[in-house]
Protein backbone atom coordinates (compact mmCIF):
# COMPACT_ATOMS: atom_id res chain seq x y z
CA UNK A 1 0.00 0.00 0.00
CA UNK A 2 2.71 2.43 0.85
CA UNK A 3 3.66 3.53 -2.58
CA UNK A 4 6.61 5.86 -2.19
CA UNK A 5 6.44 7.22 -5.71
CA UNK A 6 3.10 8.95 -5.39
CA UNK A 7 4.25 11.64 -3.03
CA UNK A 8 7.13 12.84 -5.15
CA UNK A 9 5.20 15.47 -7.09
CA UNK A 10 3.53 17.26 -4.22
CA UNK A 11 6.81 17.53 -2.39
CA UNK A 12 7.40 20.93 -3.92
CA UNK A 13 3.86 22.31 -4.05
CA UNK A 14 2.67 24.35 -1.12
CA UNK A 15 -0.85 23.60 0.03
CA UNK A 16 -1.13 20.27 1.88
CA UNK A 17 -4.80 20.05 1.02
CA UNK A 18 -4.33 20.39 -2.68
CA UNK A 19 -1.46 18.01 -2.98
CA UNK A 20 -3.55 15.04 -1.98
CA UNK A 21 -5.73 15.53 -4.99
CA UNK A 22 -2.97 15.93 -7.55
CA UNK A 23 -1.45 12.48 -7.60
CA UNK A 24 -4.70 10.74 -6.72
CA UNK A 25 -5.77 10.39 -10.31
CA UNK A 26 -3.02 8.10 -11.59
CA UNK A 27 -2.42 6.24 -8.34
CA UNK A 28 -5.20 4.65 -6.41
CA UNK A 29 -3.13 3.43 -3.49
CA UNK A 30 -2.80 6.70 -1.71
CA UNK A 31 -4.02 5.80 1.72
CA UNK A 32 -0.98 6.83 3.79
CA UNK A 33 -1.33 10.57 3.26
CA UNK A 34 -4.72 11.35 4.88
CA UNK A 35 -3.55 10.73 8.49
CA UNK A 36 -1.24 13.76 8.32
CA UNK A 37 -3.23 16.40 6.45
CA UNK A 38 -2.11 19.20 8.74
CA UNK A 39 1.57 18.60 8.31
CA UNK A 40 3.22 21.93 7.47
CA UNK A 41 5.64 20.18 5.16
CA UNK A 42 5.23 16.92 3.33
CA UNK A 43 7.09 14.50 5.55
CA UNK A 44 6.09 11.45 3.52
CA UNK A 45 8.00 12.69 0.51
CA UNK A 46 10.64 10.16 -0.44
CA UNK A 47 14.11 11.45 -0.18
CA UNK A 48 15.22 13.21 -3.35
CA UNK A 49 18.92 13.64 -3.42
CA UNK A 50 20.10 17.25 -3.86
CA UNK A 51 22.17 16.26 -6.90
CA UNK A 52 19.08 14.91 -8.61
CA UNK A 53 17.13 18.02 -7.79
CA UNK A 54 19.85 20.34 -9.09
CA UNK A 55 20.32 18.34 -12.23
CA UNK A 56 16.63 18.15 -12.91
CA UNK A 57 16.33 21.86 -12.40
CA UNK A 58 19.19 22.57 -14.79
CA UNK A 59 17.86 20.23 -17.44
CA UNK A 60 14.31 21.56 -17.20
CA UNK A 61 15.63 25.10 -17.16
CA UNK A 62 17.64 24.56 -20.32
CA UNK A 63 14.62 23.05 -22.06
CA UNK A 64 12.36 25.90 -21.05
CA UNK A 65 15.02 28.45 -21.97
CA UNK A 66 15.42 27.27 -25.56
CA UNK A 67 11.67 27.13 -26.13
CA UNK A 68 11.26 30.58 -24.64
CA UNK A 69 14.12 31.89 -26.76
CA UNK A 70 12.56 30.63 -30.00
CA UNK A 71 9.21 32.04 -28.92
CA UNK A 72 10.84 35.38 -28.15
CA UNK A 73 12.53 35.51 -31.54
CA UNK A 74 9.25 34.75 -33.28
CA UNK A 75 7.50 37.37 -31.18
CA UNK A 76 10.18 39.95 -31.92
CA UNK A 77 9.87 39.32 -35.66
CA UNK A 78 6.09 39.58 -35.59
CA UNK A 79 5.99 42.70 -33.43
CA UNK A 80 8.60 44.50 -35.53
CA UNK A 81 7.08 43.43 -38.83
CA UNK A 82 3.43 44.32 -38.23
CA UNK A 83 3.70 48.14 -38.47
CA UNK A 84 5.58 47.96 -41.76
CA UNK A 85 3.23 45.34 -43.13
CA UNK A 86 0.41 47.79 -42.44
CA UNK A 87 2.20 50.44 -44.50
CA UNK A 88 2.89 48.08 -47.40
CA UNK A 89 1.37 49.43 -50.61
CA UNK A 90 1.51 46.09 -52.45
CA UNK A 91 0.60 42.53 -51.48
CA UNK A 92 3.35 41.23 -49.21
CA UNK A 93 3.04 37.61 -50.25
CA UNK A 94 2.42 37.83 -53.99
CA UNK A 95 4.22 40.96 -55.13
CA UNK A 96 7.60 40.75 -56.80
CA UNK A 97 8.37 44.37 -56.17
CA UNK A 98 10.79 45.44 -53.45
CA UNK A 99 11.29 49.12 -52.87
CA UNK A 100 11.81 50.37 -49.37
CA UNK A 101 13.93 53.43 -50.09
CA UNK A 102 11.02 55.77 -49.38
CA UNK A 103 9.62 54.95 -45.93
CA UNK A 104 6.49 56.91 -46.77
CA UNK A 105 5.74 54.69 -49.73
CA UNK A 106 6.80 51.15 -48.85
CA UNK A 107 6.34 48.67 -51.67
CA UNK A 108 7.62 45.23 -50.78
CA UNK A 109 6.57 41.70 -51.68
CA UNK A 110 8.49 38.52 -50.99
CA UNK A 111 7.56 36.32 -53.94
CA UNK A 112 10.83 36.86 -55.79
CA UNK A 113 12.91 36.35 -52.67
CA UNK A 114 10.99 33.22 -51.82
CA UNK A 115 11.46 31.73 -55.28
CA UNK A 116 15.17 32.51 -55.45
CA UNK A 117 15.70 31.19 -51.91
CA UNK A 118 13.88 27.96 -52.67
CA UNK A 119 15.49 27.39 -56.05
CA UNK A 120 19.00 28.01 -54.73
CA UNK A 121 18.37 25.74 -51.74
CA UNK A 122 16.76 22.95 -53.72
CA UNK A 123 19.52 23.06 -56.34
CA UNK A 124 22.05 22.81 -53.53
CA UNK A 125 20.15 19.94 -51.97
CA UNK A 126 19.78 18.15 -55.30
CA UNK A 127 23.53 18.30 -55.81
CA UNK A 128 24.58 17.63 -52.22
CA UNK A 129 22.22 14.75 -51.36
CA UNK A 130 23.56 12.09 -53.75
CA UNK A 131 27.17 13.12 -53.18
CA UNK A 132 26.74 13.04 -49.41
CA UNK A 133 25.07 9.64 -49.66
CA UNK A 134 27.97 8.36 -51.72
CA UNK A 135 30.56 9.72 -49.31
CA UNK A 136 28.71 8.37 -46.25
CA UNK A 137 28.37 4.91 -47.80
CA UNK A 138 32.00 4.95 -48.88
CA UNK A 139 33.18 5.92 -45.41
CA UNK A 140 31.05 3.38 -43.56
CA UNK A 141 30.99 0.45 -45.98
CA UNK A 142 33.85 0.55 -48.39
CA UNK A 143 36.76 2.63 -47.12
CA UNK A 144 39.47 0.81 -45.20
CA UNK A 145 39.33 1.77 -41.56
CA UNK A 146 42.65 3.64 -41.60
CA UNK A 147 41.40 5.82 -44.45
CA UNK A 148 37.86 6.37 -43.23
CA UNK A 149 38.81 8.29 -40.14
CA UNK A 150 41.06 10.97 -41.65
CA UNK A 151 38.69 11.25 -44.58
CA UNK A 152 35.80 11.95 -42.24
CA UNK A 153 37.86 14.63 -40.51
CA UNK A 154 38.49 16.33 -43.83
CA UNK A 155 34.77 16.37 -44.58
CA UNK A 156 34.08 17.85 -41.16
CA UNK A 157 36.77 20.48 -41.79
CA UNK A 158 34.77 21.60 -44.80
CA UNK A 159 32.10 22.68 -42.35
CA UNK A 160 34.61 24.84 -40.53
CA UNK A 161 35.52 26.90 -43.60
CA UNK A 162 34.00 30.36 -43.11
CA UNK A 163 31.05 31.26 -45.26
CA UNK A 164 32.81 34.30 -46.66
CA UNK A 165 35.61 32.13 -48.04
CA UNK A 166 33.08 30.00 -49.88
CA UNK A 167 31.56 33.18 -51.26
CA UNK A 168 34.88 34.48 -52.56
CA UNK A 169 35.73 31.09 -53.97
CA UNK A 170 32.37 30.92 -55.72
CA UNK A 171 32.72 34.37 -57.22
CA UNK A 172 36.35 34.31 -58.28
CA UNK A 173 37.09 30.64 -58.92
CA UNK A 174 33.91 28.72 -59.55
CA UNK A 175 32.10 31.46 -61.48
CA UNK A 176 34.66 31.70 -64.31
CA UNK A 177 34.94 27.89 -64.45
CA UNK A 178 31.18 27.57 -64.79
CA UNK A 179 30.93 30.21 -67.51
CA UNK A 180 31.51 27.85 -70.49
CA UNK A 181 29.25 25.24 -68.88
CA UNK A 182 26.50 27.80 -68.45
CA UNK A 183 26.92 29.00 -72.02
CA UNK A 184 26.67 25.45 -73.29
CA UNK A 185 23.55 24.72 -71.22
CA UNK A 186 21.85 27.93 -72.35
CA UNK A 187 22.68 27.21 -75.95
CA UNK A 188 21.64 23.54 -76.04
CA UNK A 189 19.03 23.22 -73.31
CA UNK A 190 17.77 26.78 -73.36
CA UNK A 191 14.30 25.59 -74.38
CA UNK A 192 13.89 24.17 -70.86
CA UNK A 193 12.84 27.10 -68.63
CA UNK A 194 15.45 26.19 -66.02
CA UNK A 195 18.27 26.62 -68.52
CA UNK A 196 16.90 29.67 -70.30
CA UNK A 197 19.00 32.80 -70.70
CA UNK A 198 18.67 34.62 -67.44
CA UNK A 199 18.31 38.20 -66.31
CA UNK A 200 21.97 38.75 -65.41
CA UNK A 201 25.27 38.55 -67.25
CA UNK A 202 26.33 34.91 -67.19
CA UNK A 203 29.94 35.85 -67.70
CA UNK A 204 30.11 37.38 -64.26
CA UNK A 205 28.90 34.10 -62.79
CA UNK A 206 26.52 35.73 -60.33
CA UNK A 207 23.73 33.29 -61.05
CA UNK A 208 21.47 31.00 -59.07
CA UNK A 209 23.44 28.18 -60.69
CA UNK A 210 26.76 29.26 -59.13
CA UNK A 211 25.13 30.05 -55.80
CA UNK A 212 23.40 26.65 -55.71
CA UNK A 213 26.65 24.80 -56.33
CA UNK A 214 28.52 26.76 -53.68
CA UNK A 215 25.75 26.22 -51.14
CA UNK A 216 25.77 22.51 -52.06
CA UNK A 217 29.44 22.35 -51.07
CA UNK A 218 28.61 24.17 -47.86
CA UNK A 219 25.85 21.79 -46.79
CA UNK A 220 27.71 18.67 -47.86
CA UNK A 221 29.55 18.20 -44.54
CA UNK A 222 26.45 18.25 -42.34
CA UNK A 223 24.52 15.81 -44.53
CA UNK A 224 27.56 13.54 -44.80
CA UNK A 225 28.38 13.61 -41.11
CA UNK A 226 24.86 12.82 -39.91
CA UNK A 227 24.27 10.14 -42.57
CA UNK A 228 27.59 8.52 -41.76
CA UNK A 229 26.74 8.29 -38.08
CA UNK A 230 23.38 6.73 -38.89
CA UNK A 231 24.76 4.23 -41.39
CA UNK A 232 27.44 3.22 -38.93
CA UNK A 233 24.74 2.12 -36.50
CA UNK A 234 23.14 -0.40 -38.81
CA UNK A 235 22.60 -3.40 -36.51
CA UNK A 236 25.32 -5.98 -37.11
CA UNK A 237 22.81 -8.81 -36.85
CA UNK A 238 20.92 -7.54 -39.88
CA UNK A 239 24.08 -6.94 -41.86
CA UNK A 240 25.25 -10.47 -41.04
CA UNK A 241 21.82 -11.85 -41.92
CA UNK A 242 22.12 -10.34 -45.37
CA UNK A 243 25.71 -11.51 -45.81
CA UNK A 244 24.78 -15.03 -44.77
CA UNK A 245 22.07 -15.08 -47.44
CA UNK A 246 24.74 -14.47 -50.04
CA UNK A 247 24.37 -10.74 -50.43
CA UNK A 248 27.17 -8.85 -52.12
CA UNK A 249 28.45 -5.65 -50.55
CA UNK A 250 26.02 -3.52 -52.54
CA UNK A 251 23.13 -5.86 -51.74
CA UNK A 252 23.95 -5.62 -48.04
CA UNK A 253 23.80 -1.84 -48.37
CA UNK A 254 20.50 -2.06 -50.23
CA UNK A 255 18.77 -4.55 -47.96
CA UNK A 256 20.00 -3.33 -44.57
CA UNK A 257 22.02 -0.11 -44.46
CA UNK A 258 19.75 1.99 -46.64
CA UNK A 259 16.42 0.92 -45.12
CA UNK A 260 17.90 1.41 -41.67
CA UNK A 261 19.49 4.76 -42.46
CA UNK A 262 16.79 6.20 -44.70
CA UNK A 263 15.07 8.28 -42.05
CA UNK A 264 18.37 9.57 -40.72
CA UNK A 265 19.54 10.43 -44.21
CA UNK A 266 16.34 12.35 -44.93
CA UNK A 267 16.58 14.31 -41.71
CA UNK A 268 20.26 14.99 -42.39
CA UNK A 269 19.25 16.38 -45.76
CA UNK A 270 16.61 18.53 -44.14
CA UNK A 271 19.21 19.88 -41.73
CA UNK A 272 21.25 20.74 -44.80
CA UNK A 273 18.24 22.33 -46.43
CA UNK A 274 17.67 24.42 -43.33
CA UNK A 275 21.22 25.64 -43.55
CA UNK A 276 20.90 26.32 -47.27
CA UNK A 277 17.77 28.40 -46.77
CA UNK A 278 19.50 30.63 -44.29
CA UNK A 279 22.89 30.87 -46.00
CA UNK A 280 23.73 34.56 -46.23
CA UNK A 281 27.18 35.88 -46.91
CA UNK A 282 28.28 33.46 -49.62
CA UNK A 283 25.04 33.89 -51.51
CA UNK A 284 25.15 37.63 -51.05
CA UNK A 285 28.61 37.86 -52.56
CA UNK A 286 27.82 35.58 -55.47
CA UNK A 287 24.36 36.54 -56.66
CA UNK A 288 24.26 39.52 -59.04
CA UNK A 289 21.41 41.91 -58.48
CA UNK A 290 18.80 41.54 -61.16
CA UNK A 291 16.72 44.36 -62.55
CA UNK A 292 13.87 42.14 -63.72
CA UNK A 293 11.94 39.51 -61.83
CA UNK A 294 13.10 35.95 -61.31
CA UNK A 295 12.09 33.87 -64.37
CA UNK A 296 12.74 30.33 -63.11
CA UNK A 297 16.08 30.12 -64.90
CA UNK A 298 19.17 28.88 -63.11
CA UNK A 299 21.00 31.67 -64.89
CA UNK A 300 18.94 34.38 -63.30
CA UNK A 301 20.33 36.54 -60.55
CA UNK A 302 18.39 38.07 -57.71
CA UNK A 303 18.50 37.71 -53.97
CA UNK A 304 17.46 35.26 -51.31
CA UNK A 305 15.79 36.30 -48.08
CA UNK A 306 19.03 36.27 -46.18
CA UNK A 307 21.18 37.93 -48.82
CA UNK A 308 18.56 40.63 -49.40
CA UNK A 309 18.41 41.44 -45.71
CA UNK A 310 22.18 41.51 -45.39
CA UNK A 311 22.53 43.78 -48.42
CA UNK A 312 20.00 46.20 -46.99
CA UNK A 313 21.72 46.74 -43.66
CA UNK A 314 22.40 50.45 -44.46
CA UNK A 315 18.64 51.07 -44.74
CA UNK A 316 17.87 49.91 -41.23
CA UNK A 317 18.08 53.41 -39.76
CA UNK A 318 14.39 53.91 -40.50
CA UNK A 319 12.25 51.51 -38.49
CA UNK A 320 9.62 51.40 -41.23
CA UNK A 321 12.07 50.15 -43.88
CA UNK A 322 13.74 47.89 -41.38
CA UNK A 323 10.32 46.41 -40.58
CA UNK A 324 9.96 45.32 -44.19
CA UNK A 325 13.15 43.28 -43.92
CA UNK A 326 12.14 41.91 -40.59
CA UNK A 327 8.92 40.73 -42.21
CA UNK A 328 11.02 38.96 -44.84
CA UNK A 329 13.05 37.44 -42.03
CA UNK A 330 9.84 36.24 -40.44
CA UNK A 331 8.92 34.37 -43.61
CA UNK A 332 12.35 32.74 -43.65
CA UNK A 333 11.88 31.79 -40.00
CA UNK A 334 8.53 30.17 -40.76
CA UNK A 335 9.95 28.48 -43.87
CA UNK A 336 12.69 26.75 -41.89
CA UNK A 337 10.09 25.67 -39.36
CA UNK A 338 7.98 24.13 -42.10
CA UNK A 339 11.00 22.33 -43.54
CA UNK A 340 11.83 20.94 -40.12
CA UNK A 341 8.25 19.84 -39.53
CA UNK A 342 8.25 18.00 -42.86
CA UNK A 343 11.52 16.34 -41.96
CA UNK A 344 10.13 15.23 -38.60
CA UNK A 345 7.03 13.74 -40.18
CA UNK A 346 9.15 11.85 -42.69
CA UNK A 347 11.32 10.47 -39.92
CA UNK A 348 8.27 9.56 -37.85
CA UNK A 349 6.94 7.58 -40.81
CA UNK A 350 9.86 5.15 -40.69
CA UNK A 351 9.73 3.51 -37.31
CA UNK A 352 10.36 -0.07 -38.37
CA UNK A 353 13.81 -0.08 -36.88
CA UNK A 354 12.89 1.51 -33.59
Amino acid at each position, binding site marked *: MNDPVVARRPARSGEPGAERGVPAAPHASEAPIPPTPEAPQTPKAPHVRPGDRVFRGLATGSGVFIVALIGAIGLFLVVQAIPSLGLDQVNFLTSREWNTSDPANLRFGILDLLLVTIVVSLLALLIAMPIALGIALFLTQYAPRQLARPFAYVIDLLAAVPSIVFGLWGLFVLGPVLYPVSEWLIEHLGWIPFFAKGNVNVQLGGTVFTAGIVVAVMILPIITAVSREVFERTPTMHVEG*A*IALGATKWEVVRTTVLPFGKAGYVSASMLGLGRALGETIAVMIILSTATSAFGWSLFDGGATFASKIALAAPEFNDPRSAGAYIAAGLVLFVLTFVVNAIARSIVAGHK*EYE
Partner: protein
Amino acid sequence: MAKRLDIKDLNLYYGKFHAVENVSLAVPPRNVTAFIGPSGCGKSTVLRSLNRMHEVAPGARVEGKVLLDGEDIYASTVDPVEVRRTIGMVFQRPNPFPTMSIRDNVVAGLKLAGVKNKKELDEVAERSLRGANLWNEVKDRLDRPGGGLSGGQQQRLCIARAIAVQPDVLLMDEPCSALDPISTLAIEDLITELKKDYTIVIVTHNMQQAARVSDQTAFFNLLGVGQPGQLIEVDDTEKIFSNPGQKATEDYISGRFG
Protein backbone atom coordinates in the same frame (compact mmCIF):
# COMPACT_ATOMS: atom_id res chain seq x y z
CA MET B 1 21.27 -30.83 -51.57
CA ALA B 2 22.50 -32.18 -48.29
CA LYS B 3 26.20 -32.34 -48.96
CA ARG B 4 28.87 -33.47 -46.55
CA LEU B 5 31.42 -31.19 -44.96
CA ASP B 6 34.99 -32.13 -44.19
CA ILE B 7 37.00 -29.75 -42.06
CA LYS B 8 40.73 -30.28 -42.39
CA ASP B 9 43.41 -28.71 -40.15
CA LEU B 10 41.44 -25.55 -39.68
CA ASN B 11 43.16 -22.67 -37.88
CA LEU B 12 41.26 -19.46 -37.30
CA TYR B 13 42.64 -16.07 -36.35
CA TYR B 14 41.32 -12.66 -35.37
CA GLY B 15 44.26 -10.44 -36.28
CA LYS B 16 47.15 -11.81 -34.23
CA PHE B 17 44.91 -13.76 -31.90
CA HIS B 18 44.87 -17.45 -32.66
CA ALA B 19 41.23 -18.31 -31.93
CA VAL B 20 40.95 -21.94 -32.96
CA GLU B 21 43.68 -24.49 -33.47
CA ASN B 22 43.88 -27.52 -35.74
CA VAL B 23 40.28 -28.58 -36.07
CA SER B 24 39.57 -31.60 -38.23
CA LEU B 25 36.05 -32.91 -38.36
CA ALA B 26 33.67 -34.65 -40.74
CA VAL B 27 30.01 -33.68 -40.96
CA PRO B 28 27.99 -36.37 -42.73
CA PRO B 29 24.99 -35.40 -44.88
CA ARG B 30 21.40 -35.58 -43.54
CA ASN B 31 22.71 -35.53 -40.05
CA VAL B 32 22.77 -33.11 -37.15
CA THR B 33 26.16 -32.26 -35.69
CA ALA B 34 26.20 -30.32 -32.42
CA PHE B 35 29.11 -28.16 -31.28
CA ILE B 36 29.27 -27.83 -27.50
CA GLY B 37 31.81 -26.29 -25.18
CA PRO B 38 32.36 -23.38 -22.81
CA SER B 39 32.08 -19.77 -23.95
CA GLY B 40 35.07 -18.53 -25.89
CA CYS B 41 36.19 -22.00 -26.97
CA GLY B 42 35.75 -21.12 -30.63
CA LYS B 43 32.76 -23.24 -31.56
CA SER B 44 30.86 -20.30 -33.04
CA THR B 45 34.02 -19.18 -34.80
CA VAL B 46 34.37 -22.61 -36.39
CA LEU B 47 30.71 -22.53 -37.40
CA ARG B 48 31.13 -19.12 -38.99
CA SER B 49 34.11 -20.34 -40.94
CA LEU B 50 31.95 -23.01 -42.58
CA ASN B 51 30.11 -20.47 -44.75
CA ARG B 52 32.97 -17.97 -44.88
CA MET B 53 31.31 -15.60 -42.44
CA HIS B 54 34.40 -15.61 -40.24
CA GLU B 55 36.38 -13.48 -42.68
CA VAL B 56 33.74 -10.73 -42.55
CA ALA B 57 35.25 -9.53 -39.26
CA PRO B 58 38.15 -7.11 -39.79
CA GLY B 59 41.50 -8.86 -39.58
CA ALA B 60 40.00 -12.33 -39.45
CA ARG B 61 42.00 -15.06 -41.18
CA VAL B 62 41.51 -18.70 -42.05
CA GLU B 63 44.06 -21.46 -42.61
CA GLY B 64 43.22 -24.99 -43.60
CA LYS B 65 40.50 -26.49 -45.69
CA VAL B 66 36.74 -26.86 -45.55
CA LEU B 67 35.55 -29.33 -48.17
CA LEU B 68 31.96 -29.31 -49.34
CA ASP B 69 31.51 -32.68 -51.04
CA GLY B 70 35.22 -32.65 -51.72
CA GLU B 71 35.49 -29.08 -52.99
CA ASP B 72 37.42 -26.59 -50.89
CA ILE B 73 35.22 -23.56 -50.18
CA TYR B 74 38.41 -21.61 -49.43
CA ALA B 75 39.97 -22.32 -52.82
CA SER B 76 41.11 -19.11 -54.49
CA THR B 77 38.63 -19.55 -57.35
CA VAL B 78 35.62 -19.76 -55.04
CA ASP B 79 33.44 -16.68 -54.53
CA PRO B 80 32.44 -16.37 -50.86
CA VAL B 81 29.06 -14.97 -51.90
CA GLU B 82 28.34 -18.23 -53.75
CA VAL B 83 29.43 -20.26 -50.72
CA ARG B 84 26.95 -18.38 -48.51
CA ARG B 85 24.17 -19.01 -51.00
CA THR B 86 24.68 -22.78 -50.70
CA ILE B 87 25.42 -22.90 -46.97
CA GLY B 88 22.65 -21.20 -45.02
CA MET B 89 22.93 -19.76 -41.54
CA VAL B 90 20.56 -19.05 -38.66
CA PHE B 91 21.76 -16.71 -35.94
CA GLN B 92 21.52 -16.52 -32.19
CA ARG B 93 19.07 -13.64 -32.23
CA PRO B 94 16.28 -13.74 -34.79
CA ASN B 95 17.15 -11.18 -37.45
CA PRO B 96 14.38 -10.86 -40.03
CA PHE B 97 14.76 -7.70 -42.11
CA PRO B 98 12.47 -5.23 -40.31
CA THR B 99 11.46 -3.26 -43.37
CA MET B 100 10.43 -6.34 -45.36
CA SER B 101 7.16 -8.22 -45.21
CA ILE B 102 7.10 -11.80 -44.00
CA ARG B 103 6.91 -13.05 -47.56
CA ASP B 104 9.74 -10.82 -48.77
CA ASN B 105 11.86 -11.96 -45.85
CA VAL B 106 11.45 -15.59 -46.85
CA VAL B 107 12.32 -15.01 -50.48
CA ALA B 108 15.06 -12.44 -49.81
CA GLY B 109 17.78 -14.96 -50.64
CA LEU B 110 16.11 -15.96 -53.90
CA LYS B 111 15.68 -12.36 -54.89
CA LEU B 112 19.37 -11.80 -54.25
CA ALA B 113 20.04 -14.78 -56.51
CA GLY B 114 18.04 -13.04 -59.24
CA VAL B 115 14.71 -14.91 -59.18
CA LYS B 116 11.98 -12.48 -60.23
CA ASN B 117 9.03 -14.69 -61.20
CA LYS B 118 6.30 -13.79 -58.71
CA LYS B 119 4.56 -17.15 -58.96
CA GLU B 120 7.78 -19.00 -58.26
CA LEU B 121 8.58 -16.72 -55.33
CA ASP B 122 5.11 -17.26 -53.87
CA GLU B 123 5.48 -21.01 -54.17
CA VAL B 124 8.87 -20.98 -52.52
CA ALA B 125 7.59 -18.72 -49.76
CA GLU B 126 4.76 -21.12 -48.97
CA ARG B 127 6.95 -24.22 -49.20
CA SER B 128 9.63 -22.69 -46.98
CA LEU B 129 7.15 -21.43 -44.40
CA ARG B 130 5.52 -24.85 -44.31
CA GLY B 131 8.98 -26.36 -43.99
CA ALA B 132 9.64 -24.11 -41.01
CA ASN B 133 6.27 -24.99 -39.41
CA LEU B 134 5.23 -21.38 -39.64
CA TRP B 135 2.78 -21.35 -42.56
CA ASN B 136 -0.40 -21.82 -40.54
CA GLU B 137 0.51 -18.99 -38.20
CA VAL B 138 1.36 -16.39 -40.82
CA LYS B 139 -0.50 -17.35 -44.00
CA ASP B 140 -3.07 -14.58 -43.46
CA ARG B 141 -0.51 -11.85 -42.90
CA LEU B 142 2.27 -12.49 -45.37
CA ASP B 143 2.39 -8.81 -46.26
CA ARG B 144 2.88 -7.64 -42.69
CA PRO B 145 6.39 -6.82 -41.47
CA GLY B 146 8.40 -9.72 -40.10
CA GLY B 147 9.32 -7.73 -37.01
CA GLY B 148 5.76 -8.05 -35.72
CA LEU B 149 6.09 -11.76 -34.99
CA SER B 150 7.04 -13.27 -31.65
CA GLY B 151 10.67 -14.21 -31.03
CA GLY B 152 10.08 -17.89 -31.73
CA GLN B 153 8.11 -17.11 -34.88
CA GLN B 154 10.82 -14.73 -36.01
CA GLN B 155 13.42 -17.43 -35.57
CA ARG B 156 11.33 -19.88 -37.60
CA LEU B 157 10.96 -17.12 -40.19
CA CYS B 158 14.74 -16.91 -40.31
CA ILE B 159 14.92 -20.68 -40.74
CA ALA B 160 12.35 -20.43 -43.56
CA ARG B 161 14.50 -17.72 -45.11
CA ALA B 162 17.57 -19.92 -44.85
CA ILE B 163 15.92 -23.02 -46.36
CA ALA B 164 14.14 -21.05 -49.12
CA VAL B 165 17.31 -21.18 -51.19
CA GLN B 166 17.58 -24.96 -50.59
CA PRO B 167 21.07 -24.83 -49.13
CA ASP B 168 23.44 -27.79 -49.07
CA VAL B 169 24.17 -27.23 -45.41
CA LEU B 170 22.31 -25.35 -42.67
CA LEU B 171 24.36 -23.76 -39.90
CA MET B 172 22.68 -22.73 -36.66
CA ASP B 173 24.45 -20.56 -34.11
CA GLU B 174 22.65 -21.07 -30.78
CA PRO B 175 19.28 -20.70 -32.52
CA CYS B 176 17.26 -21.16 -29.32
CA SER B 177 19.26 -19.18 -26.80
CA ALA B 178 16.97 -16.14 -27.08
CA LEU B 179 13.75 -18.16 -27.03
CA ASP B 180 11.36 -19.45 -24.41
CA PRO B 181 11.06 -23.23 -23.79
CA ILE B 182 7.97 -23.69 -25.96
CA SER B 183 9.53 -21.92 -28.93
CA THR B 184 12.70 -23.87 -28.29
CA LEU B 185 10.77 -27.11 -28.49
CA ALA B 186 9.20 -25.98 -31.79
CA ILE B 187 12.65 -25.27 -33.24
CA GLU B 188 14.04 -28.58 -31.99
CA ASP B 189 11.17 -30.47 -33.61
CA LEU B 190 11.83 -28.52 -36.77
CA ILE B 191 15.52 -29.44 -36.71
CA THR B 192 14.60 -33.10 -36.47
CA GLU B 193 12.35 -32.73 -39.52
CA LEU B 194 14.84 -30.68 -41.50
CA LYS B 195 17.45 -33.38 -40.96
CA LYS B 196 15.71 -35.49 -43.62
CA ASP B 197 16.72 -32.99 -46.28
CA TYR B 198 19.60 -30.98 -44.94
CA THR B 199 22.97 -31.33 -43.37
CA ILE B 200 22.79 -29.39 -40.12
CA VAL B 201 25.45 -28.06 -37.81
CA ILE B 202 24.24 -26.47 -34.59
CA VAL B 203 26.13 -24.63 -31.88
CA THR B 204 24.42 -24.86 -28.52
CA HIS B 205 25.11 -24.11 -24.88
CA ASN B 206 22.28 -26.35 -23.87
CA MET B 207 23.56 -29.88 -23.46
CA GLN B 208 20.11 -31.39 -23.22
CA GLN B 209 19.41 -29.79 -26.56
CA ALA B 210 22.55 -31.28 -28.06
CA ALA B 211 21.54 -34.65 -26.67
CA ARG B 212 17.99 -34.35 -28.02
CA VAL B 213 18.57 -33.12 -31.55
CA SER B 214 22.02 -34.19 -32.67
CA ASP B 215 23.45 -37.38 -34.12
CA GLN B 216 27.04 -36.52 -33.44
CA THR B 217 28.55 -34.09 -30.99
CA ALA B 218 31.83 -32.22 -31.10
CA PHE B 219 33.23 -30.92 -27.84
CA PHE B 220 35.46 -27.82 -27.95
CA ASN B 221 37.50 -26.52 -25.08
CA LEU B 222 40.22 -24.03 -24.38
CA LEU B 223 43.16 -24.76 -22.18
CA GLY B 224 43.44 -21.26 -20.77
CA VAL B 225 42.72 -17.61 -21.33
CA GLY B 226 44.46 -16.36 -24.47
CA GLN B 227 45.02 -19.90 -25.69
CA PRO B 228 43.38 -21.06 -28.90
CA GLY B 229 40.28 -23.20 -28.67
CA GLN B 230 40.61 -26.84 -29.59
CA LEU B 231 38.42 -29.67 -30.68
CA ILE B 232 38.68 -32.18 -27.84
CA GLU B 233 36.65 -34.97 -29.36
CA VAL B 234 33.85 -35.75 -31.73
CA ASP B 235 31.71 -38.86 -31.62
CA ASP B 236 28.17 -40.14 -31.74
CA THR B 237 26.03 -38.04 -29.44
CA GLU B 238 24.96 -41.09 -27.51
CA LYS B 239 28.54 -42.05 -26.83
CA ILE B 240 29.64 -38.52 -25.91
CA PHE B 241 26.90 -38.25 -23.32
CA SER B 242 27.15 -41.74 -21.94
CA ASN B 243 30.76 -42.71 -22.28
CA PRO B 244 33.00 -39.89 -23.55
CA GLY B 245 36.55 -40.71 -24.54
CA GLN B 246 38.14 -37.73 -22.82
CA LYS B 247 38.08 -36.71 -19.20
CA ALA B 248 37.54 -33.02 -20.15
CA THR B 249 34.39 -33.93 -22.04
CA GLU B 250 33.04 -35.91 -19.15
CA ASP B 251 33.78 -33.06 -16.74
CA TYR B 252 32.04 -30.57 -19.00
CA ILE B 253 28.87 -32.53 -19.68
CA SER B 254 28.53 -33.52 -16.07
CA GLY B 255 29.01 -29.93 -14.94
CA ARG B 256 32.46 -30.31 -13.41
CA PHE B 257 35.02 -27.91 -14.74
CA GLY B 258 38.80 -27.66 -14.51
